[in-house]
């Protein structure tokens, strides 16, 4: 029996398990997927929890529901990969051999990287919304908050879903308007980048949107510490921003198992060929999703597009052919802008987000880089698609490679 092992049963790992079990002959191939947790979280839903739009039950399901028959699911923490000897070692010392390995262990937030972040205000006045615990704690806080300085801060890049912080402040604007508290809540968006977003055209459009909504932007702020006593955040060049409620996007890193396995960079992101999606160290190790150090967004839509490339190249490798698929970094994100509207961006390694319509040129129904009601429904629909289509590795009506039709260049 040959062995395919998948590390991590999140978005990417689950998609791969489904795709590969459909293709590989059961009498020849054993497929194993390993994860430390039983519960699958729909992470994009964490954004909606602080505003009472989703509850915990809306974003969780058992992982086992999405892992197909004929795939072994091991519930265990993974200690490390021994790439020289094609072995995975679990926390309790159990060794699992593989012929091919897919690493899809994602990334995690590391508040401990920033001085004072996990101080005595953590989950009292300092929150994250990138974990279920953080988003629920923040939801509780908002229920009785009377207003003050609401500061959102990005500690460092890269982060998961780089538009989520923008969506957060726009939701917050709508939320406090609806509660009749907006004149008591001052909203400030603090970022280490030089504008609202990384890509110039989108940054301009999104920056203007923030201005319209009376949200302050403080750019070029590289966070050194949270001062719990003075209730302020401080940058390395000694700028200060006071807060009553701090919503922070902590530093992101890969799982420490990547470091222990010597597969990653200094942030434990896996060193990955950005086109073939193979580990740069071992040809029989493929990397899918947030875990990779490739220069595109860490987002579920990217995972979906990348899964098609990993699938094709893994099949090439299995059949002893040179890899044929080449990833273009395609990313496609709905952006909630509040009051029942949303925007949409579509981009890749080489092309920044442009205005236009999507997926059908000239028709849409979704508008690129502009606020429409339809885009908001697109985002809500995404949760249904995620559970019912995406995780199961089914075909979606959008090709993995980005196309220019429907996009306006100027």
């Amino acid at each position, binding site marked *: 029996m040959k062995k395919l092992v998948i590390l991590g049963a999140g978005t990417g790992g689950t998609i791969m398990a489904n795709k590969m079990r459909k293709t590989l002959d059961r009498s020849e191939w054993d497929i194993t997927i390993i994860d430390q947790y039983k519960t699958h979280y729909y992470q994009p839903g964490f954004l909606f929890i602080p505003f009472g739009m989703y509850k915990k039950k809306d974003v969780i399901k058992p992982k086992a529901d999405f892992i197909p028959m004929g795939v072994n699911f091991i519930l265990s923490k993974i200690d490390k990969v021994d790439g020289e000897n094609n072995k995975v070692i679990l926390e309790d010392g159990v060794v699992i051999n593989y012929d091919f390995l897919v690493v899809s262990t994602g990334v995690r937030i590391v508040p401990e990287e920033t001085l004072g972040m996990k101080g005595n205000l953590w989950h009292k006045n300092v929150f994250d919304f990138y974990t279920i615990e953080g988003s629920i704690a923040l939801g509780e806080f908002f229920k009785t908050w009377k207003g003050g300085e609401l500061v959102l801060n990005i500690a460092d890049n*890269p982060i998961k879903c780089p538009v989520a912080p923008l969506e957060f402040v726009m939701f917050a604007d709508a939320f406090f308007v609806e509660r009749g508290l907006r004149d008591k809540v001052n909203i400030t968006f603090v970022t*280490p980048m030089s504008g609202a977003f990384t890509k110039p055209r989108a940054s301009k459009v999104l920056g203007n949107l923030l201005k319209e909504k009376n949200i302050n932007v403080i750019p070029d702020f590289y966070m050194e510490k949270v001062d719990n006593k003075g209730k302020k955040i401080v940058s390395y060049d000694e700028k200060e921003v006071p807060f009553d409620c701090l919503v922070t996007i902590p530093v992101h890193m890969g799982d420490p198992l990547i470091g222990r396995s010597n597969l990653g960079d*200094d942030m434990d992101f896996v060193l990955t060929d950005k086109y073939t999606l193979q580990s740069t160290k071992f040809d029989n190790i493929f990397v899918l999703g947030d875990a990779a150090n490739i220069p595109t967004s860490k987002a579920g839509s990217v995972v979906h597009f990348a899964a098609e490339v990993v699938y094709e190249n893994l099949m090439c490798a299995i059949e002893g052919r040179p890899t044929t698929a080449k990833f273009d970094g395609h990313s496609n994100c709905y952006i909630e802008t509040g009051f029942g509207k949303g925007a949409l961006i579509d981009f890749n390694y080489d092309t920044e987000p442009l205005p236009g319509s999507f997926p059908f040129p000239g028709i849409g129904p979704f508008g690129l880089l502009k606020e429409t009601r339809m885009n908001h429904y697109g985002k809500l629909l995404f949760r249904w698609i995620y559970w019912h289509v995406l995780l199961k590795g089914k075909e979606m009506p959008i090709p993995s490679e980005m196309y220019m039709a429907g996009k306006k260049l100027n």
Partner: protein
Amino acid sequence: MATKEYAGKTVNVSEDGYFTDASQWSREVAADMAKEVNLELTETHYKVLEFIRDKYNTGGSLTIRSIGKSGIASIKEFYKLFPGAPLKKATLLAGIPKPASCI
């Protein structure tokens, strides 16, 4: 493509001043470029620049945090070495093409 003169050498640069060919860099070129931003390069500056070039050559991702973890300078010291916009200044002086912005 534009060219610029530094320390008597012609180098190719992009419209925002980044090198398009990292091999055209030398310590002398960097020292000359540094004058444009009123910096006098010390040995620590050079160590940072070489760390950045090494990261570029090996395809690693470059962030302020990774420089802080390099053991050459803490992030605070890095801000003192290249005041204002440290990563931008340092990558320019290191003579590498414009780093892909983190997305």
